[in-house]
């Protein structure tokens, strides 16, 4: 399913705002998501990603601005919209009083689907989530990765047009994360529109066609991962470790070699389009670094540049 340019957007937000008392969680954002896209909300904790997702999922009324999901208004058509969405919340909300299979069967009934249809889909979805062998066991003893896969399988029971994933792989081990990404890739290929939040940059680079970076309730950057890197970072990064306790002393000696220099406790980051050339000059100047590393700039560099290195809790 290729998106036609004249297709109406699946999600259209204008000046979307969410207040909780005096606190502004989402501060007037504009977002458009088209059919077939994988769209990401990036940002540190408290940036407003989950609040935005909850508004799109029609479980949190917007405080201001306009929002259309699947062409409808969540305030008046919440139930109809939710019927066509799949939602994977940040924390698993599986029904622990039921078995693995029953979780899908019962969830399907919440969408008013006929039992025979759900039964067939449950078998397919359990296959998809690699849980067929655990189908008739209770949910509680499953591992974190299995529960996550079941939550995703459950969210697909109504064959949603739009799948909303709030930090889908947070807290999973690397194997489980890759297994999940593989499932999400397959969904994307089959034409499901994905909207996800994450603070893992590799996840965003792997999965998202387009993303926005949020900070303090606002959108601070928007584009494809490649675009964001080229707009907000240089092509390469030279990491310099020097024989000193205070790297700040050396900042002035290399600042002409890069577009931007960042001082970390144990190294200097030189943002430059040609890392090798810069490294050569560093050596010529007799700075004698303990080590040099030239790498491609990543989304993580963009992210940290835009949202800062201060820890946010």
């Amino acid at each position, binding site marked *: 399913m290729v998106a036609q340019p004249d297709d109406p957007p699946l999600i259209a937000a204008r000046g979307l705002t969410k207040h*909780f008392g005096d606190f502004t969680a989402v501060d007037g954002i504009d977002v458009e998501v088209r059919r077939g896209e994988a769209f990401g909300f990036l940002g540190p904790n408290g940036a407003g990603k989950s609040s935005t997702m909850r508004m799109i*999922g029609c*479980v*949190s*009324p917007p405080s201001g601005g306009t929002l259309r999901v699947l062409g409808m208004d969540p305030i008046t058509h*919440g*139930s*109809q919209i*939710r*019927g066509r*969405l799949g*939602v994977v*919340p940040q*924390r698993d*909300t*599986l*029904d*622990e*009083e*039921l078995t693995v*299979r*029953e979780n899908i*069967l*019962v*969830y399907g*009934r*919440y*969408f*008013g689907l006929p*039992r025979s249809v759900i*039964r*067939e889909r449950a*078998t397919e979805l359990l296959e998809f989530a690699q849980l067929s062998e655990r*189908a*008739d066991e209770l949910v509680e003893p499953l591992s974190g990765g299995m529960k996550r896969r079941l939550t995703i399988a459950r969210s697909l029971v*109504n064959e949603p047009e739009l799948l909303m994933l709030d930090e889908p792989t947070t807290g999973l081990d690397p194997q489980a994360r890759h297994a999940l990404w593989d499932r999400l890739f397959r969904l994307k290929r089959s034409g499901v529109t994905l909207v996800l939040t994450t603070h893992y940059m590799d996840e965003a680079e792997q999965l998202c066609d387009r993303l926005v970076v949020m900070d303090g309730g606002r959108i601070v950057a928007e584009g494809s991962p490649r675009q964001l890197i080229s707009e907000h970072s240089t092509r390469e990064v030279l990491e310099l470790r020097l024989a000193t306790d205070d790297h700040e002393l050396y900042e002035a000696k290399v600042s002409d070699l890069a577009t931007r220099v960042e001082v970390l406790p144990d190294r200097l980051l030189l943002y430059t389009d040609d890392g090798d050339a810069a490294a050569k000059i560093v050596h010529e100047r007799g700075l004698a670094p303990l080590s040099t590393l030239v790498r491609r700039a990543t989304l993580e560099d963009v992210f940290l540049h835009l949202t800062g290195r201060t820890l946010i809790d």
Partner: protein
Amino acid sequence: MSALERSPRGGAVQRLGRMVPFPAGASMARALVERNIRAYRSRWITLVSGLFEPVFYLFSLGVGLGALIGQVDAGGGRMIEYAAYVAPALMAAAAMNGAIFDATFNVFFKLKYTKLYESVLATPLGPRDVAVGEIAWALLRGSLYSTTFLLVVAVSGMARSWWAVLAIPTATLIGFAFASAGMALTTFMRSWQDFEYVNISILPMFLFSATFFPLSTYPEALQWVVQATPLYHGASLVRSLMLGDVGVGLVVHVLYLVMMGLVGITFAARRVERLLLT
């Protein structure tokens, strides 16, 4: 497709679910009732144990203690066996207790710990479906208890009239009133300690709402207090039906319980919305 799914038990869930009439605006509530029936399949013993409590009370107090008490005034100077006097009250109290248990403890657990309603509200179901679904389930469970109890009463010869059949829908109405009010109050609970308030209000009602002894034993001032409690109206209604004392006066009891239920369920739905759809 598992064997379990095709078994007659699957069909029973379906039929039970269909039996419950759902009001407009809560048509999806049925799915939540089905969910609860499924969840109880694996712990049916907790369901069955509820059948025995009122029956034990009936034989201990009604029959055992009743032998010492002899006859009591059922109103208007008509004397009846103590067992026949206390049986209707026990039925009404059982309906109250069953409804309160499901609509308070169980709802609180789902609201606070299992986050069931969060996942439910991400689907087409809304807060009204949640309130109606949970209360309908409490009533379904309560009806099972009251039907069994009435059978025991009838077999033991404690029911005096065919009007007693109406005690079953009456017990459901009592359950509706208490489940709705109970669920509404549960949305305000912060911890398990708050449930002591439930116990503190339910136990005296169980003991003093003209359940075990007639209203006429109270001094005039206290009679008004007793008559204000919902269980008094429930117990009086069931008692009148079982004794065949049917009159227009019963409408007051019915209206009281209907109003309590409607206010409770409306309030419960609003509170679920305010708590979860923020």
